[in-house]
């Protein structure tokens, strides 16, 4: 495992281009685009103010920089450095900005969710979408970029509009049977839309592309409900995490629950591997300790209460909680229990059972699946990055003077490299080729 030199960064803005060739990062008001493999600077753009959000267009030709404070969006072209575009939302303000999947339109949400403005880079036309709902996840595009589903609120009722992205025409408009719609998400195959109610009520609704209600699911009543929802990459399963500390998996045929994963405080099954991070006195050693399965997970109970506050804070970004994997062959689902924010739970969907629990010393800040294989990168805000795969678990000290407090990680498309982000710096971690990694993990696994 090799690390690049450390570069400056601000507000965790560092993104690989969708084609994997470039890496964009922000330093205050400057946008730096580097080659993803050599890390040489390709382009340098200067914005008008501090950048608060960046996003690559789907074809990796443009980068959008949002300056929310000023209500401005600046777009840069990678092919033509002299080309520039500036969108000013004026007094309406700006709270969110994103690309349409074709990479030629920009969707800007004004303050107070008054409307969504669709700016085109090809023509002068500007489209407006009224009544967008201010919620967790109100805009979702299908994976093929053909359709946009948008949560709306009119007359105290929730609606979902499905628009065709090519010409922004309304395809379907239907009301959802929800008290307060919290989010919508397309299945990866683009044929089913999942819509869920706010946390006050456990309710998840599934709609077909043409607006028919396929099914509704409610696990229980009169208690705090859904926390996060994630589709499996094959669209076969829908994982629903809720406030009762359980993940429920629905199938795509009957839309009924297949199984329910809890987060037991003690794990007695000897087949489940529990990895527990332990501090070693010489901190520079690539410390990794894996305990053989049973009786190892009794620890979190005592620390539960102290960690609960932390958990509450983390509820604001609940999509990170339970996320489906990017793998077809071996489908794994990690969940992160709010009571034990320092633990990551990984279930095997093929066998429908808990596979491993990773217990870190401090609360998990971010985790992300390798886009190519069953490998999970985890960071806890310390100076280490943890990698888990079915073969084992390793922790790697990120080099850098003063230590890099890793707050976020970001995989490269190929799964060969990993961007490691801290508050003001970042570096790239190049992983070995698959064989090398395999042996490394194998050796790591021998310790167990």
């Amino acid at each position, binding site marked *: 495992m090799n690390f690049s030199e450390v570069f400056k960064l601000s507000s965790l803005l560092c993104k690989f281009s969708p084609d994997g060739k470039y890496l964009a990062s922000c330093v205050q008001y400057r946008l730096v685009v580097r080659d993803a493999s050599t890390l040489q600077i390709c382009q340098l753009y200067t914005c008008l103010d501090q950048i608060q959000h960046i996003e690559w267009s*789907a074809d990796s030709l443009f980068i959008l920089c949002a300056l929310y404070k000023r209500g401005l969006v600046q777009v840069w072209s990678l092919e033509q450095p002299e080309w520039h575009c500036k969108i000013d939302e004026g007094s309406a303000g700006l709270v969110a900005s994103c690309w349409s999947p074709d990479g030629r339109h920009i969707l800007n949400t*004004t303050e107070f969710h*008054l409307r969504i403005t669709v700016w085109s880079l090809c023509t002068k036309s500007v489209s407006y979408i009224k009544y967008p709902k201010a919620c967790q996840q109100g805009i979702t595009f299908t994976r093929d970029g053909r359709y946009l589903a948008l949560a709306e609120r009119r007359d105290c009722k929730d609606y979902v509009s499905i628009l065709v992205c090519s010409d922004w025409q309304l395809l379907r408009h239907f009301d959802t049977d929800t008290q307060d719609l919290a989010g919508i998400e397309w299945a990866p195959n683009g044929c089913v839309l999942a819509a869920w109610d706010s946390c006050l009520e456990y309710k998840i609704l599934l709609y077909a592309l*043409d607006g028919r209600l396929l099914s509704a699911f409610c696990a229980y009543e009169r208690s705090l409900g859904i926390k996060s929802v994630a589709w499996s990459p094959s669209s076969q399963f829908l994982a629903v995490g809720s406030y009762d500390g359980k993940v429920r998996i629905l199938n795509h045929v009957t839309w009924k629950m297949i199984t329910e994963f809890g987060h037991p405080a003690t794990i007695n099954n000897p087949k489940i591997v529990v990895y527990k991070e332990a501090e070693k006195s010489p901190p520079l050693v690539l410390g990794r300790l894996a305990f053989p399965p049973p009786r190892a997970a009794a620890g979190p109970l005592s620390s539960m209460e102290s960690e609960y506050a932390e958990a509450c804070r983390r509820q604001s970004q609940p999509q990170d909680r339970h996320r489906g994997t990017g793998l077809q062959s071996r489908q794994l689902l990690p969940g992160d229990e709010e009571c034990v924010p320092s633990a990551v739970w990984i279930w095997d969907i093929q066998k429908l059972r808990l596979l491993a629990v990773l217990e870190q010393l401090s609360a998990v800040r971010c985790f992300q699946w390798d886009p190519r294989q069953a490998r999970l990168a985890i960071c806890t805000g310390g100076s280490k990055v943890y990698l888990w795969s079915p073969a084992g678990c390793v922790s790697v000290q990120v080099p850098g003077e003063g230590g890099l407090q890793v707050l976020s990680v970001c995989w490269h498309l190929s799964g060969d490299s990993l961007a490691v982000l801290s508050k003001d710096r970042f570096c790239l971690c190049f992983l070995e080729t698959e064989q090398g990694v395999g042996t490394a993990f194998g050796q790591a696994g021998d310790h167990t």
Partner: protein
Amino acid sequence: MGDWMTVTDPGLSSESKYISQYTSETKMSPSSLYSQQVLCSSIPLSKNVHSFFSAFCTEENIEQSISYLDQELTTFGFPSLYEESKGKETKRELNIVAVLNCMNELLVLQRKNLLAQENVETQNLKLGSDMDHLQNCYAKLKEQLETSRREMIGLQERDRQLQCKNRNLHQLLKNEKDEVQKLQNIIASRATQYNHDMKRKEREYNKLKERLHQLVMNKKDKKIAMEVLNYVGRADGKRGSWRTGKTEARNEDEMYKILLNDYEYRQKQILMENAELKKVLQQMKKEMISLLSPQKQKPRERADDSTGTVISDIEEDAGELSRESTWDLSCETVREQLTNSIRKQWRILKSHVEKLDNQVSKVHLEGFNDEDVISRQDHEQETEKLELEIQQCKEMIKTQQQLLQQLATACDDDTTSLLRDCYLLEEKERLKEEWSLFKEQKKNFEKERRSFTEAAIRLGLERKAFEEERASWLKQQFLNMTTFDHQNSENVKLFSAFSGSSDRDNPTVHSRPRQKKPHGAPSGSPVCTSKLTKSLPASPSTSDFCQTRSCVSEYSSSISVLNTTPEESKPNQVGRECTNQKWSMASRPDSQEGCCSGCSSTHADAHIEKDDLP
């Protein structure tokens, strides 16, 4: 108590001693004498007074005392002290023997009395102590009673208190319930109010939003604008199209297309899954048949009526196996048949396994056969021996290597080159041999290919001829039919179609055994014969009929081949049998592997459990 003890002590000694002691006591101890006197004094007072001053008997009153004694004694029932007077005048004489006897008796009586007295005294003591004991007990019990009574009172008091408390709690519960009810009502009202307020607020919010919208958006805000250097082309290179009704329709179309594609994909997947499951079922069935068929003979010998019926089923199933085309049909009859047959076979298998289990348990009960089971010691010894052997072999190899090296170093270059040449020559020869073998194989392959192509051509010709024949026949039929009136034509058509086919097929079926015999008999495959028996029955059900038809059509095609190349059918069948055998062969290692894996898994489990132990 102490007294009592001293008194009982002599009682424990021997009788004679006891008596002697008493005698001595009576003689010597003054106390006893005194007591005797006291006892005596209890007799009439006058005499007492009289005897107080003087002894009972003096010289003067011997006669009187004797007579008195006599009187007294006679009144007590003793014999008279005097001799029986023979005459009235004669003075009655004192009978000394009688006196002595009396005295003795009196003494004995006295002793008895003393004894009795002792006994009574001891008994008295005993009773007294018993009494004390009982009194103690009584006192204790009384105390106990008192305490328990007190306790009872306390408990009653507590019970009362608890009841009071309970009543209070009940009251509290009721109050709480009321409270809860109230609160629930409040919550409900609050919820409705909240909802109402929310709605109102939201409406207000919406109004404000609207207002803001108007203010911000409709002011023609100069700032809201986009500055672009130049517009870029679309990603797909096309130009934007106008919005028309057409585009809407196109969008709809596309959406439905996507949905359709999804459904088709899913259907395909389901079909595939179905097919796979069917395949698995089929394989299972095959395996079951292959498993169960060897046992065919055994149950028959035993004349087991339950399995007897089943065997015929197996045969049937074996016949069905050949008609694999039926599996592709997903009609219900086939499905039912499949599931039923598999269920049946499963039942047989289960019973068989149970039987085996029973047998095994019996064997276990009988005890292990020493011949079959290798004892652990033997095993260990054997392994040790083998290890030793391995060691020896290794040493041998090492020495050989050393020798070889020595040889190699000793030999000069010429010899090594020679050796190498030798090796080369050898290899060359081997290669030549292989080459020739390959050539032969190639020739064989060529031959086979040629024969195959010929056969294929012939088959094609045959088929063509057959097709022509059929066409002509159909035409004829049709022509015949057209001569009939319109109403009957259809029925006739159906009927004729069936009858025609059966007519045409039956001869072939009948002819088949004849043709088959020379080939089938030597190969002696039970599968084939069962097939034939199956196809023969005259009144099959509809599904059976279908099957027979398909079967027969298969036969007919094969017959056509038979007619032309009689040799080829035989390898075909043999091949089929071979596949069956292969199946069974393949299944065996599978099962073994399963067993092994099972073993290993259990072993692993055991290992894990071992790990669990501290």
